[in-house]
């Protein structure tokens, strides 16, 4: 069997050529694999066996080769692996590759057996290999053991039920216990599952070791992700095992740099795994626990690993005598830190400058009351005891204060000079413009004072209160703009208050008549404020304006109009929810109109003014709002329209006619009629008006007749008859309505 050395090299070269061929085109794999198996078998030279094992591992891991082909090739390869393993093979490199190959083969063979229960021989071989690996795992050298970890993971993954993605296409499903039929001849599910559970415990056993093997822990942590992702039944168990594992606790005391590398590595890997899990499933049930664990890891890392880095930096420091002196200072007594309160507010003064105590009694105590000899008696021993450090601090504090104050004063002086200069300039440009007396006076005063102040005099005492100059008067547009922005702000308050709890409203309702409008700051209060702002606040003011400028074109919208416009928009945005705001508003408008009319009437009798001084906002806005709502009303909105019509303070002909337009739309005919009916029944003052409208509707729109006829028959029996007769022949639809009318 032994071959000359040159032969081996030649053989390897040939094998490499073959490998290059399949790397270039995966279609050659079957041919090449079957060709080389006898060459790289158990009896070949070490080099060749290594090459062969490598190649097999590569082949069955290759993403280029289709699973089906791998499955076919696997049969032949199994035999070879089994024989090599049973030798027993001793070379770590070969074993490493073989275990890798076995890990890749396991799902393939498993799947093959699921589909071909008759081929129990392959399963036998696979099982022998598996048992051999599991038995020898603990005695394998480290590199092989690492690969065994992965093999374990593969077996667990295969023998645990996974997800069935699509039951109709079994070939698409991932290889797992879930694809094994219940009555499989070779594979017994409970047995396999139990084995997997045992192997999982073995896999996770690394986390329980007293002293962890860094490599095995990392290898395990890094291969758990697919299990957690795809195997629901064991995911939590795995995570909990990881969460119970604190790397820093699993190392032995001699903390060599290598051990620190290991601890840091395990911590970072555990963290990476958990973050990976959270990333894939941000709403993981164990989220809280995982986050706590990650935080704890970070902390322990600070303690253990960064401790290491701190220690490592020590030798870098100079170790001469100077250094020791420096260090000694660290333990020196630090003087008590003096609490320096900020200088008291108000104009600066010497007493304030030097007051460091916050004790009011002490600072207001007049020392002059004491006899001088007593002062001396107290002061001398006190001075002797003064802590020099404290004194330095106090002196520094005073110095800082003094500098701050002088700076402020210089600044103020500069500003005053500037304003004086500015005032002069202004005079040049606009000689007739006299903004405010105050501003100019102060400016003059300042300019008058400045030259008199001597440079050296500390002005601590001369600081007077500072007066802000008056702002320039607002133009009308600006005022309007400001007003509108104020209104916008109040509206934003409504939106904020919108989410208020209904409980508050209940309380308010319990107050009944005793309540005060706008007394609690919920939405209603703000609405009320707004409506009154719009209606009452400028009443009389704007009216008067209009009087004066009557005849000229309409002025730009007044504040109240803009509030109204905004309110209108606001209500329309969600008229179903904000209808009550609309009603409140319209009531306020109506009430305001009444008041205005009353005032105007009294005025009129006094001065005989023209009659149309009162603008009736109610009529305008009720129509606009109604128009707006009607556009969007659908046939089920009967409650909305009935509420609106019944709660507005006054129903006019215009309103009923507007409502009547609803009847144009065959879908909303009933809505219209029902709304009118409600008014007829429950709003007697508007009854006649509504009946008239209803009659019109009845006449105009055929669709309305069944419903409208009934009401008319009840409320206006005598008038319906003739029209009935006229239309009877024309429309059969009216017939059912006519009958009750006749009875």
């Amino acid at each position, binding site marked *: *069997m*032994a*071959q000359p050395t040159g032969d*081996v*090299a030649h053989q*390897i*070269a040939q094998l*490499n*050529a073959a490998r*290059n061929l399949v*790397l*270039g085109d995966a279609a050659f794999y079957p041919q090449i694999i079957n060709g080389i198996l006898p060459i790289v078998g*158990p*009896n070949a*030279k*070490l*080099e060749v066996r290594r*090459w062969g094992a490598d190649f097999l*591992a*590569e082949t069955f*891991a*290759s*993403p*280029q080769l289709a699973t089906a082909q791998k499955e076919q090739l696997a049969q032949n390869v199994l035999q070879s692996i089994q024989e090599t393993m049973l*030798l027993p093979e*001793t*070379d*770590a*490199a070969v074993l490493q590759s073989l275990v*890798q190959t076995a*890990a*890749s083969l396991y799902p393939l063979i498993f799947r093959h057996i699921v589909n071909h229960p008759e081929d129990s021989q392959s399963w036998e071989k696979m099982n022998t290999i598996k048992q051999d690996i599991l038995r020898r795992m603990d005695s394998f*050298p*480290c*590199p092989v053991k*690492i690969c065994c970890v*992965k*093999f374990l993971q593969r077996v667990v993954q295969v023998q645990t039920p996974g997800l069935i993605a699509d039951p109709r296409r079994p070939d698409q499903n991932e290889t797992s216990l879930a694809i094994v039929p219940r009555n499989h001849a070779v594979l017994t599910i409970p047995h396999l599952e139990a084995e997997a559970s045992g192997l999982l415990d073995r896999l996770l056993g690394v986390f329980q070791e007293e002293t962890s093997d*860094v*490599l095995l822990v*990392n*290898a395990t*942590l*890094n*291969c758990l*992700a*697919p299990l957690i992702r795809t195997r629901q039944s064991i995911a939590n168990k795995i995570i909990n095992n990881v969460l119970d594992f604190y790397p820093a606790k699993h190392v032995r005391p001699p903390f*060599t*740099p*290598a051990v620190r*590398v*290991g601890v*840091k*590595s395990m911590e*970072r*890997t555990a963290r*990476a*795994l958990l973050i*990976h899990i959270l990333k*894939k499933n941000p709403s993981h049930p164990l989220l809280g626990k995982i986050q706590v664990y990650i935080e704890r890891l970070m902390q322990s890392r600070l303690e253990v690993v960064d401790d290491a880095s701190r220690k490592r930096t020590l030798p870098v420091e100079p170790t001469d005598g100077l250094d020791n002196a420096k260090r000694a200072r660290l333990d020196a007594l630090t003087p008590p830190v003096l609490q320096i309160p900020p200088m008291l507010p108000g104009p600066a003064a010497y007493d304030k400058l030097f007051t460091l105590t916050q004790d009011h009694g002490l600072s207001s105590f007049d020392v002059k009351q004491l006899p001088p000899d007593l002062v001396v008696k107290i002061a001398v021993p006190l001075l002797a005891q003064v802590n020099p450090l404290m004194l330095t601090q106090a002196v520094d504090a005073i110095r800082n204060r003094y500098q701050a104050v002088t700076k402020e004063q210089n600044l103020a002086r500069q500003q005053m000079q500037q304003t004086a200069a500015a005032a002069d300039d202004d005079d040049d440009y606009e000689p007739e413009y006299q903004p405010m007396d105050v501003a100019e006076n102060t400016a003059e005063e300042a300019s008058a004072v400045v030259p008199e102040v001597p440079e050296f005099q500390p002005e601590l005492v001369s600081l007077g209160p500072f007066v802000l100059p008056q702002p320039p008067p607002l133009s009308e547009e600006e005022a309007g703009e400001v007003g509108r922005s104020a209104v916008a702000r109040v509206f934003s308050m409504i939106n904020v208050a919108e989410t208020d709890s209904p409980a508050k409203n209940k309380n308010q309702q319990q107050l009944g008549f005793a309540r005060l409008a706008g007394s609690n700051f919920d939405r209603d209060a703000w609405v009320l404020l707004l409506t009154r702002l719009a209606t009452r606040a400028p009443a009389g003011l704007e009216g008067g304006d209009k009087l004066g400028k009557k005849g000229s074109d309409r002025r730009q919208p007044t504040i109240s109009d803009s509030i109204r416009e905004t309110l209108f928009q606001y209500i329309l945005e969600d008229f179903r929810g904000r209808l009550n705001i609309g009603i409140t508003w319209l009531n306020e408008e109506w009430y305001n109109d009444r008041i205005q009319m009353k005032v105007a009437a009294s005025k009129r009798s006094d001065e005989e003014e023209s009659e149309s001084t009162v603008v009736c906002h109610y009529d305008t806005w009720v129509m606009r709002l109604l128009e707006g709502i009607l556009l969007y009303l659908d046939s089920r909105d009967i409650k909305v329209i009935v509420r609106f019509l019944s709660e507005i303070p006054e129903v006019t002909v215009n309103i009923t006619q507007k409502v009547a337009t609803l009847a144009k739309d065959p879908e909303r005919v009933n809505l219209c009629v029902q709304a009118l009916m409600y008014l007829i029944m429950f709003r007697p003052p508007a009854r006649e008006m509504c009946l008239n409208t209803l009659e019109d509707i009845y006449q105009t729109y055929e669709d309305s007749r069944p419903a409208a006829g009934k009401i008319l028959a009840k409320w206006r029996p005598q008038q319906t008859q003739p029209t009935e007769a006229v239309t009877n022949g024309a429309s059969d639809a009216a017939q059912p309505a006519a009958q009750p009318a006749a009875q």
Partner: protein
Amino acid sequence: MAYDPRRVNTGSTTPQTPPPPPPPPPESATPEMDTQATQEGTDSWKLKFCTVCASNNNRSMEAHLRLSAAPTAFPVISFGTGSLVRLPGPSITQPNVYGFNTTSYNQMYEELQSKDERLYRNNGILNMLDRNRNLKWGPERFQDWVPGAPRVDHAAKGDKGAQGTEGGVVDVIITCEERCWDAVVDDLMSKGSTLNRPVHVFNVDIKDNHEEALLGGKAILDLANRLNAAAVAQRAQHGTEGWENGSDAARLSFDEKVPEILAEWQELNPNLPALWTLAWL
């Protein structure tokens, strides 16, 4: 089968197996056609490396250059983990952005040269791209990498360091920033470790500028040499005696030595904080 296959192995290998432990530089320096790989095909076994940074331009490419140009001429591939390739532009808010896997270094070079040669010459971008275009075609994104997918064409195109990476797998990944390490470890978990092949993932924190990249590249080569020496030693050792005889600490396997190697290396390079884990391809 009357013979003991073990004896056959040991018997036949003893004369030829003390394979020269020092990595044979002369052979790899003259990479011949793979098909004609002579004896060194077996002996010049080396670790395969992968370097990763954000844009696969500065740090990972400097390391790529170092590793591929070393006397040992490591097999090396390189990637970026960012969403896009970002190169500095005229201001911090106007970076030059390119897609991974679709833009070659040459395209970038020519585009930036025509945009503002003076600027990009002075900030070193053109020099960097010039170096890169001599190494491989263009930046590749780590997340788009399919481990195990053959990279024969890369070798055929003459990418530096492609010799030995035809199988599309590596033994060691070295990232240049913690963010990239996190991204790599996370991505390997997402890929599901279908190859069942272990891979050591290191991070060597390097600031993203040319000077630091140079220093970092050197340090990475140093780390690579140390790792490779350990791996080669293990391969040689186990070939002859088998692990059962190697009981003393010096005979630790390559994998077991990794934390020690890294700790040693870290002592020498305290300014390049390192991190490591053992993940799966």
